[in-house]
């Protein structure tokens, strides 16, 4: 029988991982929903977020400033990539953009290696205190992660449902052509969405940095997981991404209680299962032909 305290601890742990997955996967999901591109380079903005957090916090001593810096750099980088690369290839097929974004990711890993080297960079945890929940000691920092993820979800919801630009984006997710036909410059929407995606990925990296090894391959290692979260939730669905992010987080966390090595594999097995039943993911719709 699993100890109740251990269980609560694992659930919180899973929720915190899920929060990070959500922040990273939402970028991929939005970009696909609106622009029909698979933006694997989001992993690069995630890595940049982590590395900038490291560098800035080294100089200023503040993780918060570091995360902010990470988000800014991620925003700038994603803006540059969108304008220079994606702008030219929006009309190509999805496999094409996926390969190209992968190239950007790999190249970016190289850039990171060039500036920061191969050695993993440690980032200190800003809040080391613990909170007692139902008798279990839980790290406050992890609770903070969960809170931030929910805040971001709420913020995104407000943006998409209460602002005119957000509504334009939702309309664009249904049909870009019809939005264009109204006289709205859709390319500005694309750029905005891409920057939002990149910034959130950067935020994820910065927040996660204290809990993991910040090293050049970090984006590649987490790629499969993030992509899987998006697929389970269904590409293009914001709610789906949240649900599946927390789901995968729980699978990994609770799974490691049961049998550690299996925990890494289990989410993939779940994904295959879901795809067997619903080939477009939990909430996805069959937007595209193959």
């Amino acid at each position, binding site marked *: 029988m699993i100890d109740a305290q251990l269980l609560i601890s694992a659930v919180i742990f899973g929720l915190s991982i899920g929060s990070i997955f959500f922040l990273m996967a939402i970028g991929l999901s939005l970009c696909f929903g609106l622009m029909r591109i698979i933006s694997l380079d989001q992993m690069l903005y995630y890595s940049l977020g982590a590395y900038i957090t490291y560098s800035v916090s080294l100089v200023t001593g503040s993780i918060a400033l570091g995360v902010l810096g990470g988000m800014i750099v991620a925003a700038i980088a994603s803006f540059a990539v969108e304008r220079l690369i994606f702008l030219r290839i929006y009309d190509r097929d999805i496999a094409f953009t996926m390969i190209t974004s992968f190239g950007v990711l790999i190249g970016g890993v190289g850039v990171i290696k060039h500036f920061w080297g191969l050695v993993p960079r440690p980032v200190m945890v800003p809040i080391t205190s613990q909170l007692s929940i139902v008798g279990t000691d839980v790290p406050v920092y992890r609770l903070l992660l969960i809170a931030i993820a929910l805040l971001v979800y709420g913020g995104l919801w407000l943006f998409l449902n209460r602002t*005119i630009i957000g*509504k*334009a984006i*939702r*309309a664009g997710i*249904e*049909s870009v*052509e*019809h*939005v*264009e*036909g*109204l*006289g*709205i*410059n*859709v*390319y500005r929407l694309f750029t905005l969405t891409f920057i939002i995606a990149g910034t959130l990925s950067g935020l994820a990296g910065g927040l996660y940095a204290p809990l993991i090894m910040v090293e050049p391959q970090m984006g590649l290692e987490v790629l499969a997981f993030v992509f899987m979260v998006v697929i389970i939730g269904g590409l293009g669905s914001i709610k789906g991404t949240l649900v599946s992010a927390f789901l995968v987080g729980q699978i990994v966390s609770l799974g490691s209680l049961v049998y550690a090595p299996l925990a890494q594999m289990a989410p993939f097995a779940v994904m295959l299962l879901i795809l067997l039943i619903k080939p477009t993911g939990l909430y996805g719709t069959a937007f595209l032909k193959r």
Partner: protein
Amino acid sequence: MSATLVVKDLTVSYGESKVLFNISVTVDACEVVACVGRNGAGKTTLLKTIAGFLKPISGTVTSNDVSLLGRASYDVARMGIKYVPQDKKVFSDLTVRENLELGSYATQDYDWQKLTTYFPKLKTLMGRKAGYLSGGERQMLMIGRAILGNPKLLLVDEPTEGLAPSIVAQLKEVFRELSRKTALVIVEQNLPLVCAIAEKVYAIKDGRIVAELTDKAAITPPMCERYL
């Protein structure tokens, strides 16, 4: 005064196959022009090219002496030329009000009075999600959205397709009213409607214009039929 729309020698192809051959069309201000033809004749292709969604191989498209070619479709829309597509697709997840808000945002025209004059039903549907509208209501919403910003030209693609006769009659009146301020190019298979309101008819067959009828008296369904 320069014409609202002048299309000259337009040739358009989908990939390797040509669809339109040397099309020439003129539309004057506030004129109602109809394009008739069988399925696949190329009518939608023509409208889409004018609206900027397709690029022609050759030919010119100008409006009041300003070229439309090479412009993005949202640019063309901003110039006052609005395309109302055939697919009756509105933004399903948004409410009717939000659909209109997007139109207003794009044109900075927040005067919805004229819409509710033409389509009083829309007033009652404001809070409903557009996905739940009937075909006729969607058409009303699409046209309502398109006339925001007081466009000088409306390109309407098969508006009455699949609609009940009562709605078709309503649309006929709406088009008549609209043509007082806006030029209309209507692509239609419904010949009686077209012949009732059009001042000029182009018959398109296999990508070519086979007839241009400008004599109002000559515009009758049997006359059009002859050319198709």
